[in-house]
């Protein structure tokens, strides 16, 4: 019988959303439109329209060693062209942001190729070849894993994910990369905090009901409490017990 991955335990909406995001067969709902140029501007790695700088000659132009793995694994478009490795980093507010660092890494590992994610408590960075990155970034910004107010692209100075929201519902950002203007969130700086030549609109912040329905974070005050999901608690306790027991290296007599 073919193996069907379960992706994660739990009966709550949070658990369901986590499974949806991880499952590569589930098509993430597209919520907003961002142009390719907008994504390039937010990333800030190259000027829009300029050629991709390269780290090595295209694979077709160079002799590859005789390697069985290289025969099995097909290179991504970026790797084929010899692009530089560049990154996008997200900070997700604990107040019901639609994704969070661990979740992002799981999701990206299931959905994308040729990536190197880095998971931290308040931010998640993903590195890959520049041309692949732009595609992935576009998907990450346009779909339901992004909320303009609660998620933000921050290459540096990411502080804010665990703070109270501002009066207008925006997550705190020391560099104020995005501002809420007439109900629409606009990036005025790129992800590292350099001012942009023009504002980049990423759409309206989602309303409370949507945010709660799409959250992947347990939060006893702002959303679903972890303890309310009995199946999740049971699973985590099982893992905890097994890890602890294994720490004592039990031996069968």
């Amino acid at each position, binding site marked *: 019988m073919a193996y069907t991955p379960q992706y994660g335990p739990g009966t709550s909406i949070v658990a369901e959303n986590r499974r949806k995001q991880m499952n590569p067969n589930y098509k993430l709902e597209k919520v907003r439109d961002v142009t390719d140029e907008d994504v390039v501007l937010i990333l800030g790695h190259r000027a829009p329209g300029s050629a991709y700088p390269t780290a090595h000659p295209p694979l077709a132009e160079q002799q590859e060693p005789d390697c069985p793995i290289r025969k099995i694994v097909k290179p991504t478009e970026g790797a084929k062209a010899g692009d530089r490795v560049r990154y996008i980093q997200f900070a997700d507010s604990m107040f019901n942001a639609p994704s969070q660092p661990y979740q992002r890494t799981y999701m990206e590992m299931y959905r994308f190729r040729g990536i190197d994610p880095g998971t931290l408590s308040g931010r998640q960075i993903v590195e890959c070849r520049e041309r692949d990155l732009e595609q992935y970034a576009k998907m990450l910004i346009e779909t339901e894993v992004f909320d303009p107010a609660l998620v933000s692209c921050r*290459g*540096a*100075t990411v*502080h*804010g994910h665990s*703070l*109270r*929201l*501002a*009066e*207008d519902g925006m997550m*705190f950002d*020391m*560099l*104020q990369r995005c*501002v809420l203007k007439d109900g629409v969130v606009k990036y005025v700086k790129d992800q*590292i*905090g*350099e*001012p942009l030549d023009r504002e980049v609109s990423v759409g309206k912040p989602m309303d409370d009901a949507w945010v709660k329905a799409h959250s992947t974070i347990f939060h006893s005050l702002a959303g679903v409490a972890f303890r309310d999901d009995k199946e999740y608690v049971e699973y985590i306790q099982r893992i905890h017990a097994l890890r602890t027991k294994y720490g004592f290296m039990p031996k069968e007599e």
Partner: protein
Amino acid sequence: MTESQFPQCRVVPLRMLKPETSERYLNEVVKVEGIRRMMVNGPSIPAVVPYGPARGSPNPNSNRRTIKVGDATMELRVQVGSITFEVEDAGVIEEIRKVTNAFFTQFPAQVLEGKFMKTEASLVDYCRYGPNADPSVIGLVDPRRKEAPVIIQGRK
């Protein structure tokens, strides 16, 4: 040195405040008589980018601006998250609570009672700042800062 028996309280709104709202709230609350010291806390908003690839470039930010409280002007360097008060007696806290509850209608704010400011210099403060540190700011900010505390007068 501040007497240790002065009561203290801290106002914590559910959301972090914009400079305009902070200005309006502070102008309401300074009308309460008997506030000895007041401290505005929150995450810092630096004038220049402190680290990262854009380090050293200016950081234009609409949340960092000068506000006027009473007849004194002060530069907000933080996004206002909480405001700590040291007051003459417990009755003043009740007054602050009344003003706070009347002011915050869109979202709630808590008024916590307790001890939030140092009331005398500790040994560490003495080692760091020496015997001549300004006692009115010990435990609140770095006493070596060049800016003096703002004195608010002319409460209306």
